[in-house]
């Protein structure tokens, strides 16, 4: 072929030059563990459901279904969870953590409004599982077991399902129609619920079932010995809240003292105020910093005018008054008496000193170990007796609704493995997506949205819900504050910033980009400009 003057070669594209040979490291798409997921006691994949929710519209239902994979109570969680996810959220280092809890509540409420339901998508296994206790842990286990095709019976000692979600958490924090809606959804999966069916002897029932999950909770209010006059009015917080739920209004008088510093003490004091007490005082033997109640509960109590007497113990209870003693903290932070006595006017004293579990049903169960009044379990939630699992407040972990729900899920997974004889699915925990793995330049400045709260006058006199929900635009805004830590969210930055066109955009869901190793020189720009830290450099074998 004739070529122009001085031209001897055919023209070619530089694509013949495979610059990938220069590379000593290659970028690899990765999924790191977002801190919110890492902190969630119920094991929710929060980053994944926020990702769905960020789209709005049809994304809300996908987001809700993603929550339901792990947790059957989105609307309840969005009200009562103490959201350790928000404490762990990386966005807290940038401006303020994402309001995960308020988005979850929006999705949960949306599901109730729209009537979204879940189904059992596997054939029945023919295995029968007994769940004892219809609290958060028992219901969570029942839900997950039912979705795995097992035949589940829940035996509940009380007259209604919900456990501490009904008999411990007051209505102003969790309206009962929300609780009922989410419990109803579990029963609609075919879970059999037997109410007023207290199990007093587990061994007598055990053989009728292939496995048992114990979730009886802890409802016995701890008593402290306090000398009291004959006309003194004392009651325990757990029975007070329970009685109120079953329609019995306790007579507390005008001035109410609550003894204890936990969440139950806050609930008792706030409830007393709503029942007409003009003054509710929390008496706690240590100071505020040592108080086990969650900050949000303390704040809400303070807003409602609850008073606090720190570093104080109660020595004697009489009609209309308490004798109290000032305490001081020693070097180890333990309160020591000072001998200084005072009087405090109080018409009644509510004890909120913690709860014990009624373990009488476990008499004669072989191999079962009880320590400090709680049942010991392994990582698989199984007790020392094969086939009997336990979770929730009756095992030694932090006591909260979310922890209990997480126990139910973990127990269900392991019961499923136990029944099928297979090893449980291994738990994969990738490396944490810490703040320094992100490139936060790319996130828009976006201050957090606050949930509206009920005005104070109505909080003090009614049981109306205190913290209100976000509307759709707010919830969407809040979901979009998520930084998607450690997981690709299709921002196209890697595709954009590669100087060598060595990132191929596939544009398919779940399969977004591919590194073209023929041309990737290993510069690492895609890694450093990935907002979410979802790419990492891996050395080549040379």
């Amino acid at each position, binding site marked *: 072929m004739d070529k122009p003057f001085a*031209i001897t*070669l055919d*023209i*070619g*594209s*530089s*694509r*013949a*030059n*495979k*610059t990938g040979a220069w590379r000593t490291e290659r970028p690899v798409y990765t999924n790191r563990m977002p801190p919110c997921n890492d902190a969630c006691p119920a094991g929710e994949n929060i980053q994944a459901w926020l990702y769905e929710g*960020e*789209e709005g519209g049809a994304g809300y239902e996908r987001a809700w279904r993603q929550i339901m994979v792990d947790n059957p109570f989105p609307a309840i969680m969005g009200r009562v969870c103490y959201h350790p996810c928000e404490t762990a959220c990386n966005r807290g280092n940038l*401006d*303020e953590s994402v309001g995960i809890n308020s988005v979850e509540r929006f999705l949960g409420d949306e599901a109730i409004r729209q009537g979204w339901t879940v189904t059992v998508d596997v054939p029945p296994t023919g295995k029968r599982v007994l769940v004892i206790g219809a609290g958060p842990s028992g219901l969570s286990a029942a839900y997950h077991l039912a979705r795995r095709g097992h035949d589940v019976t829940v035996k509940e000692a009380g007259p209604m399902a919900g456990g501490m979600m009904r008999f411990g958490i007051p209505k102003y924090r969790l309206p009962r129609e929300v609780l009922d809606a989410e419990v109803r959804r579990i029963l609609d999966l075919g879970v059999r619920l037997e109410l007023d069916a207290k199990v007093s002897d587990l061994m007598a029932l055990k053989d009728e079932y292939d496995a048992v999950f114990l979730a009886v909770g802890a409802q016995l209010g701890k008593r402290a010995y306090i000398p009291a006059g004959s006309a003194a009015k004392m009651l325990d917080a757990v029975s007070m809240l329970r009685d109120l739920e079953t329609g019995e209004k306790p007579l507390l008088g005008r001035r109410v003292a609550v003894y204890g510093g936990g969440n139950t003490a806050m609930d008792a004091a706030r409830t007393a105020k709503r029942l007409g007490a003009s003054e509710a005082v929390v008496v706690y033997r240590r100071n505020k910093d040592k108080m086990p109640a969650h900050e949000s509960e303390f704040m809400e109590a303070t807003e409602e005018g609850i008073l606090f007497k720190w570093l104080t113990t109660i020595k004697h209870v009489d009609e209309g008054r308490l004798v109290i003693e000032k305490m001081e903290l020693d070097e180890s932070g333990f309160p020591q008496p000072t001998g200084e006595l005072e009087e405090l006017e109080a018409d009644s004293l509510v004890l909120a000193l913690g709860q014990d579990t009624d373990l009488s049903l476990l008499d004669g169960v072989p191999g079962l170990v009880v320590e400090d009044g709680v049942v010991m379990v392994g990582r698989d939630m199984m007790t020392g007796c094969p086939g009997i699992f336990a979770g929730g407040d009756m095992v030694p972990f932090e006591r909260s609704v979310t922890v209990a729900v997480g126990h139910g899920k973990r127990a269900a997974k392991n019961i499923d493995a136990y029944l099928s004889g297979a090893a449980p699915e291994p738990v994969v925990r990738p490396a944490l997506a810490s703040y320094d793995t992100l490139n936060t*330049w*790319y*996130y*828009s*400045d*976006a*201050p*957090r*949205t*606050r*949930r*509206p709260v009920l005005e104070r006058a109505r909080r003090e006199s009614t049981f109306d819900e205190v913290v209100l929900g*976000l509307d759709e*635009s*707010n919830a969407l*805004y809040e979901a*979009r*504050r*998520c*930084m998607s830590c450690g997981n690709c*969210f*299709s*921002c*196209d*930055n890697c*595709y*954009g*910033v*590669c*100087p*060598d*066109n*060595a990132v191929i955009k596939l*544009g398919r869901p779940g399969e977004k980009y591919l590194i*073209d190793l*023929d*041309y990737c*020189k*290993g*510069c*690492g*720009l895609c*890694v*450093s400009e990935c*907002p979410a830290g979802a790419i990492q450099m891996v050395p080549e074998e040379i």
Partner: protein
Amino acid sequence: MAHQEIKLYQTGTFVAGNRLLDPEQRSVQARMGRSNSLTSGHRACQGCGEALGARYVLDAAMRATDGKMVAVNSTGCLEVFSTPYPESSWQLPWLHSLFGNGPAVAAGVAAALKAKGRDDIRVVGQAGDGGTVDIGFGTLSGMFERNDDVLFVCYDNEGYMNTGVQRSGATPPAARTANTKPVGDEPGNVFGQGKFVPAIAMAHEIPYVATATVAELRDLEYKVEKAMTFRGARYIHVFVPCPLGWGAASSDTIRLSRLAKETGVFPVFEAEHGEVTEVSTIRRRVPVEEYLTLQKRYAHLFGPAGRPDIVARLQATADRNIARYGLLAPDEEPAGPGVAQDVAGEGAV
């Protein structure tokens, strides 16, 4: 920022794509069908800012002209690494003649197209800082004063890089190059020399002058598209870090561009007919040390025998840019649909 920000939270328009935006609102670089004017297999170094900048600019220009355009290139890294005979990385009509005549050749191409009645075909001239501010400067000024219908783009990496990192008229003070004093009390380029060509281009009162960096893709694409709406001479000066010549990590190219803007070292603005019309304000202001310490060409300013006095002079230069171009944003409150919000500590978007 000159281009229209989209107030959508998460990443808004900071990233290339963003699945939450309509495809039309995403950048050219986020499109699967982008023209890839400078395709794979070129021999630019790892993390080359110039290769990235050239693709950003030309892909945006290709989109703005619907593919009807010609590129004219002066000698420099960009020409050398893209066209070792007989291979070419260019996926558009592309012409190279000499080091010093790029703007003149581009003006000639535009004149020829006009003579043939094809002024629907647009011309983009491009060069590095050597071919623009030094060797091609006479032809560039001529192209400007005749108001020839060419968009000329300078990819400024602050030196002659493919010949071994020599000083150019765009090399900043104190930066070490192969031919600035390597030893002595004050190694590196001297203060008081060099030129800022965007300001000289503005002095020609041509229709459009803009500066940009490879860190702000949306802004750069906006400026290229806007430039293509004008007829006559237009000039865009793009800041493109050079990992090799600056002694920086290849993965820091975009970070360095971002820091050049956020420190005030490189002012980002646009001007029409000699007047500044928009500036990109600093979003998170940082001291110049954050920019300087990532580059070995400034290493002599730090460490035990450091030169805080020189660093202070560089800071003063940046502060002068900030004052001269008004690079600090008036405090805007970020607006969101929230019920009640805390105001974030950071500056407005």
